[in-house]
């Protein structure tokens, strides 16, 4: 996958809208036409904390249309708590777009798997595939019904939506990946974003089905721009996949650590050695 983002920059964006989608789930829209213009499906941004008191937070770009982009996040700690208190009219620093993004190919049948907040990174690829005329099915899992935010939105965008909840309050009771494993329809490609255990399960289901899978990984970031080598994941060592690193024969290992924020955040399941 190409490493893009020479056009990334810091946007000083005005927050245009803020919605609480469920308890602890917030959507912030902001005015950033330059960001929208170069955002790709699967791009993420680093949001500068207004207080300047903690590291910036990496968040997937949820929507990108016209002048407006948005982020969707769960309040899980101090940093997202601070972001959740931002209101309309305030300015936020947004660094991006970052990461390589999903590859939108010519597949006719696409499965998108999202777990929890992973939904924030899959609207843009869903829209992109729908535009190519592909059939797009969303497999969407969360702890409970009210956390399955924005599911109508995906249906409205032309996706078929299948849901799973841990507590069985809606749809399949259990993991979204078992829903995927039971499917009657073998997709041509799988795209997934969610917690690491879910991504591992997606990789194994995809491999059983002999379907290629693109996984958008979650890692703890520091810089988010490829400068610190803190966010790495082990991948197979080919020089194409790990720039600036000696190939296997010079390195003495067939595995290297690639940066999730730079060589990723999207990797093909078959290149990962986790």
């Amino acid at each position, binding site marked *: 996958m190409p490493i893009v*983002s*020479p*056009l*990334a*920059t*810091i946007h000083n964006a005005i927050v245009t809208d803020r919605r609480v989608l469920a308890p602890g789930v917030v959507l912030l829209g902001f005015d950033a036409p330059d960001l929208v213009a170069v955002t790709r499906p699967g791009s993420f941004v680093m949001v*500068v*904390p207004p207080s*300047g*008191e*903690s*590291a*910036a937070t990496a968040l997937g770009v949820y929507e990108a249309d016209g002048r407006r982009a948005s982020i969707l996040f769960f309040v899980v700690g101090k*940093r997202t708590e601070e972001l959740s208190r931002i209101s309309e009219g305030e300015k936020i*620093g947004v*660094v991006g777009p970052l990461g390589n993004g999903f590859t939108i190919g010519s597949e006719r049948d696409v499965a998108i798997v999202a777990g929890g907040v992973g939904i924030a990174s899959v609207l843009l690829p869903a829209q992109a595939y729908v535009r190519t005329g592909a059939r797009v099915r969303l497999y969407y899992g969360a702890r409970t019904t009210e956390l399955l935010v924005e599911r109508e939105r995906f249906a409205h965008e032309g996706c078929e939506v299948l849901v799973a909840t841990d507590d069985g309050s809606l749809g399949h009771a259990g993991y979204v990946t078992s829903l995927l494993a039971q499917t009657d329809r073998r997709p041509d490609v799988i795209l997934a974003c969610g917690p690491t255990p879910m991504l591992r399960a997606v990789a194994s289901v995809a491999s059983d089905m002999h379907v290629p899978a693109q996984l958008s990984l979650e*890692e*703890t*970031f*520091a*810089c*988010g*721009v*490829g*400068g*610190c*080598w*803190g*966010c*790495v*994941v*082990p991948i197979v060592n080919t020089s194409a996949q790990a720039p*600036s*690193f*000696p190939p296997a024969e*010079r*390195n*003495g*290992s067939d*595995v*290297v*650590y690639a940066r999730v924020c*730079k060589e990723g955040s999207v990797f093909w399941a078959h290149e990962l050695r986790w």
Partner: protein
Amino acid sequence: MVNDVITAREIDVSVRLGKLELAYPTLMGSGCYGSGEEYAPFVDLSKIGAVVLKSVTRQPRLGNPTPRLVHTPSGMLNAIGLQNPGIEWYLEHDVAKFAQRPCTIIGSVAGFSVDDYAYTCEKLAARNEIKAIELNISCPNVASEGETFACDPNLTANVVRAARATTDKTLIVKLSPNVTDIASIAREAERAGADALAVINTVRGMAIDVDMWRPRLGNVTGGLSGPAIRPIAVLAVYEVARAVKIPIVGQGGIETAGDALEFFLAGASAISIGTANFTDPRVPLRIVDELRAYLAKRGLRSLQQIVGKANVGFANPHQYEGDEG
């Protein structure tokens, strides 16, 4: 009267480290800023003093197992483990690109023996793209030998002397805070030929996952950076400034001009910014603007006028200074 007013733009914020002249006193910390390229889309690199490159070693290094980062109160732990392609590959594939950067590039060398340091330093310093060398003798994240150099005055002297013999370029020696008496190490580094000292590298620390009953970092221990270590770093600069005459590059949790001033007033001639770039890449330029405004307000024409001005010694000298106590 009008003639007496100094505008912020006229203020000289330049600094000299050995033979190296920098227009700005801001260095980007090794390992935090890639090779500068990663930040070029966000920052006008011509307005920063220098980028200190990620440390390079003689042999390629895969780096530490994951996870390598943990965010902690007012800072973060890292245990990268010096992931790098090794000096030969680096010279062949990476170094030529540094010539295009609009700022000064300082190489950083790490190693596991005196010979390693001398070998890597000689090869890297020979390149035109590299204007100075920082010796990282204080990485806390590699098998114990790495940091041992900065923890022992004799080993420090041996490494610095060996590296000194390989180049005339400015040699900066990066010291560890994880020692009993940083001043004695600083003195040895100066005596062995260092042109400047970087004070401090990260502070050893760890975090534990109470659900998993395991250390959070793949490497178990890590190096703490960010505002959490700032008071430790300010004291280290203060002590080292009393022990040596060569310039000090102060670092550890600098986020604002106010933070930077603490280091200058303690005795640093320049500063380095690492972790704060992760919060906001605009920090280094903002700090310089605010430093200028601070100096202009006080009618000062040069940043170097304030270096060490708060270094008044200790209330109880025997408690801190030298070996006499």
